[in-house]
Structure formats: C-alpha cells, structure tokens
C-alpha cells in the first residue's frame, strides 16, 4: 500500500481528506447553504447544519460544543471521554416566519421569527470575535464531520449503526440499524452527528459520497457540494494516502495543515491551514510587531504544532517575496481543479 507511513484506520483502503485554508474564508456561508439545500431540507433536519461556519473566537455551533465532551481519553483509543447531547437551545431552533400572512394576506406585522424573540441561533455571535479596538480580531472556521481515523462516534454506538466505510473511510450512519439512541451524538467531540426527531434516527455529513462516486445524474465525479460551491475555493479534497496529491504534501510533508483539536484523539481527516492576521496597530495607527490573533488561542484550537506550521508558511512566503520558488506557496495558491480535487486517483487500482 502507498500509505505505509500514514496512519489510516484498520480495514480502510484509502482515506478521504479535506484541507481548508482559513486564510481564504470570508464567512459567506455558501458552503453551509450548499449542504443544506442538498441534504438537510427534509423534515426533522431543519436545525441541522452538517456544514457550518462559525466565527472564532466564539461559542460555535452548537453553542459551546467544545465543552460538551466526547472523543478519547488518550491516543491508546481504549477509553472514551463521556460526552453530552447538546440542547435544542444550544443548536438554535429553526425559526418560523409568517411569509404567507405578511406577503399574501397582507397582515400588518414585521417579518420576524414567530413565537417570541430568539435568544440564540447558529452563527449568533457572527463577527463578534475578541480583542480591543484597534486590535480586535476574528476569523471564520468552517466545520464538517472530520471522518476521523479513530471515530469515537462509531465506538459509542451500541448497535454498530455508525460505521467507517471500507473503500474511503467515510463515516456513515446506517439508517436501518439506527434506533435513535444518540450515543454517537454525545460521543462525537465535534458534535457533528445530529438527531432527527422525525425519522428518530441520527444523521451526519456523508462527505457527499454519491458525488465523489460519480453517482449523480451526469455520472461524473464531483467534489463535495460544500467544497464545490465555495466562493473562494478554499477546500482541497482528495485522499490522505495519495502521496502525489496536495493534501498529502500539506498534511504529511510540510505539516502546515492541522486537525482541529487533536487532543480529542479522534484523528480527524479534515485539516486546516491556520489563519494569519495583520499585525497589531498602536493607538495612532502605527503597525507594531505583535500578532493580532494570540498564539495561545491558535494553540488551543490546533495544538502546539500550529507554531511550526505558521513558521513554515512564513518562511516559504518570505522565500517567494525574495523572488524564490516555493512548492508550498504554489500549492496554497493553486486554482487548478485537477489538483484541488483529486478524487479519481485510485479508481483504476
């Protein structure tokens, strides 16, 4: 196998992976809507965002998800960390609007959520961030299921209804086996499995498997909708063990693409290029030599390795500034879809 030096789950042939460059995210939620339109417009899925984009620092979606437990105690993957199921309030209920009444029946009221003033919802704290003027800061963090190598959601299910697909490591919920017990919901530390109170089953991001398999009406392979629709094309999609591909290079070779919260020990397969921000300014607008996004905050999200990653990127950037060549900078700026989405490399194997 090509992945001798890469950690891939037992019994999985190839592992799908995604790299998101946080420096390119403008928080437009086009990915969120792409996924919502494609997968979660059914009854019972109204409150679900398999793809969400949250402002950081911020409470995220569902609210305070990082404090809700789940994942593994250690890299031995023997003991799971207990987790909790977020409340409806933490997710934010899907608001109802009386379009009918106002637009068709001419009712004299404001177009606002029915049933009282909402107090929380997905993306409620958008652009709030942290820091004091003139050095306030924030960035956007798009999140999907990480299709983890050690998925604690799979382990949590007493019915083996959640499983990791052999061909590409996509983590799926078998809707026939699921009985809505929600141990997966509490077991996932990223809170990326959702309970559908209408079907009484749990659901999650499917990595758009029909699209990557070319099972759509046009029989063509397509990247996942959230990646495909992304306005700034910040996502790379392919296989972690495709050693010629950009994902392998960013994750394994340059080590500049990092998993979110590696301490949860699920070994995610969605990776992030950490965000850079302009340096801080003095009160009279002079640039000062201090990082705007506190390094400690990035360490909280991406672990200690974020320091090396940022350093590597900085070094390569300077190389280019001096007129030199950097493969890393080429990859990070590449807009060639054949490289950005390498989903057919193992097809004829």
């Amino acid at each position, binding site marked *: 196998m090509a992945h001798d030096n890469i950690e891939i789950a037992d019994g999985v042939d190839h592992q799908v992976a995604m790299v998101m460059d946080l420096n390119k995210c403008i928080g437009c939620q086009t990915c969120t809507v792409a996924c919502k339109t494609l997968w979660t417009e059914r009854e019972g899925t109204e409150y679900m965002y398999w793809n969400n984009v949250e402002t950081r620092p911020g409470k995220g979606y569902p609210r305070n998800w990082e404090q809700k437990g789940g994942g593994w105690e250690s890299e031995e993957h023997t003991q799971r960390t207990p987790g909790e199921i*977020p409340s409806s309030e933490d*997710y934010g209920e899907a608001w109802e609007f009386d379009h009918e009444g106002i637009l068709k029946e001419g009712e004299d009221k404001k177009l606002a959520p029915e049933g009282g003033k909402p107090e929380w919802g997905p993306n409620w704290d958008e652009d709030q961030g942290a820091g004091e003027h003139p050095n306030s800061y924030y960035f956007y963090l798009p999140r999907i299921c990480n299709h983890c190598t050690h998925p604690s959601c799979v382990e949590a299910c007493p019915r083996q209804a959640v499983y990791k697909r052999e061909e590409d490591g996509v983590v799926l919920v078998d809707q026939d086996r699921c009985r809505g017990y929600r141990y997966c919901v509490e077991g996932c530390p990223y809170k990326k499995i959702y309970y559908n*109170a209408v079907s009484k089953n749990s659901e999650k991001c499917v990595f758009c498997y029909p699209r990557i398999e070319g099972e759509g009406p046009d029989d063509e392979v397509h990247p996942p909708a959230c990646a495909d629709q992304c306005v700034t094309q910040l996502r790379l999609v392919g296989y972690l063990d495709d050693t010629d591909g950009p994902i392998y290079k960013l994750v394994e070779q340059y080590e500049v693409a990092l998993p979110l919260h590696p301490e949860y020990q699920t070994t995610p397969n969605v990776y992030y290029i950490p965000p850079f921000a302009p340096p801080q300014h003095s009160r009279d607008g002079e640039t000062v030599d201090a990082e705007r996004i506190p390094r400690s905050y990035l360490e909280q999200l991406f672990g200690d390795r974020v320091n090396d990653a940022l350093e590597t990127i900085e070094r390569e950037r300077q190389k280019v500034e001096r007129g030199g060549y950097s493969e890393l900078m080429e990859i990070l700026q590449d807009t060639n879809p054949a490289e950005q989405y390498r989903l057919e490399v193992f097809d004829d194997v």
Partner: protein
Amino acid sequence: MTDRSTWTFVALAALLVVVAGAMPLLADARPAYEIPSPTVEDDLDGTDASGWEDVPAAEVPLESAPSGLPNAEMVSTRSVEVQAARSDGEVYLRMQWQDEEASESASAPQAFADAVAVQIPADPGVQPAIAMGSQSNLVNVWYWNADTGTEELLAGGQGSTTEFEDASVQTWAEHTGSGEDGTWTVVFNRPVDPAGDNRTAITGGEDLDIAFGVWDGGNAERSGHKAVSEWYYLPLAGDSGGPPFESILWAIAGIAIVAVVVVTIQGIRRVRTGGGE
C-alpha cells in the same frame, strides 16, 4: 411414660416442627420467580379492564443492566408489578411501575421516551442468555415506547434487535398521577401462537421463561441503559402441575398432615384402651 407413648410424643413433636416450618412457605405458596397466569373470562383489553381485578400480581425487582454504556448503573425504576393472564387463545401481561412524570416524546435532541419490554425465549424449551439471548438462542421482545408505540422484536444478543414484519403484539398504555403516585400501566397482548418464524408459541405444556425491562426516558435511559429483572416464568406446564419446588412443599405438607392425623388417632386409641397412665 411408656416407651410407646414416648415414641408417639416424639413423633408428634417432630411432625409439628416440620409442619410449622412449612407453614410460612405454604402461606405464600407461590415460588419466588413465578408470575401466576390464570385463565380469565372477563375483559382484559385495556389498562383498567375489569378482568385485571382478579389476576394476582407479582412484584418484580429491577436492577441496572450491565451494558457498559455511559451512566448504565444509574436507573430510576426499582420494581415493576406484573400480572399475566390467558384468555381464549390470547396472552395478556399488565405491567405497572412508578414514574413521577411521563416522558412521552423524543422530539428534541435531549428528549427520550419512557419504555417497557418483555422478553421471552423464541424456543420456550431452552432458557436463553438474560441479556437479549444469543445468536444460537433467540429471544422475542415485546417493546412499547411512549413515543413510538409498539414493536415486536427478535434478538440474538445485545445490539441485535430487528423488528418482526407484521407485529402481532398490541398494547394499551396510560400514565396516571404524578410525583410519588405517578404510575405507568402498560398492557401487552398477543395471540398464543401467531404465524411466523421464530415467534414464541405460548401454547402451554411447559413453563415460559420471561424477563422484564423498564426505561425511564426522563433519566435518558435507552438501549442497554435500563432497569431489568432476572428470569421469571409463567407456570403454563399444565393447570395442576406446578414447578418442582411448589410440588415438594405441597408433598411435605401433605405427609405432615397425614402423619399428625395417624399419630393422633393412635394416641387417642391407646388412651381409650387404657394403655396410658
């Protein structure tokens, strides 16, 4: 005292001891794990159908099932009162347990519904593993959930439940009172011998092993996180023939009574014939 009268006195005393020892057991003649299952003519269709008044109840203690699931040891329900009855080709079970508040919907991420289940062996001849049987020894599960209703399931080990296609089990359920007095009453009913593979035939001739489980939705109990009983049984092995334990007790009592009568008569006779002092 003559030798004879001494012998008589000793024998009498010994027998009285035996009888006295057996009395408390005789007073509650039902063996520990038996759920009486009388045949009832009156209506049993419903949580307070009139027929239930004459059916004796067994108090079945419950404990947390050893599932290994998070919080598995924390269960709310300590016991369930079970009544069983047969009526014209039908089997009925009525179960009642204390639950302060009914949890009847699973329509929010954190909401779980109350539920109850009855487990019987698919093949009444062999007692399966208590935790949902095994692949080689299946169980039938009659399941009722306050949110989703009734299911008739087949299982061969934990996490293996599958639904029978056309459920032959029907239920009636009601929650009454609140707080300390809050009570769920659920009645299960099934024909004794419905068609279909692996459906337990409850045709009598042998006792039927039976176990019970209760889930408190308000305590997020679901799956293997539940309060369960040990194996109990319905005494169906023939109307007069009970299980050996019961028969032995009755035999001891019988012998004791006969012996007391015989010895007493002998003693009286001897007194009359002047054998005494």
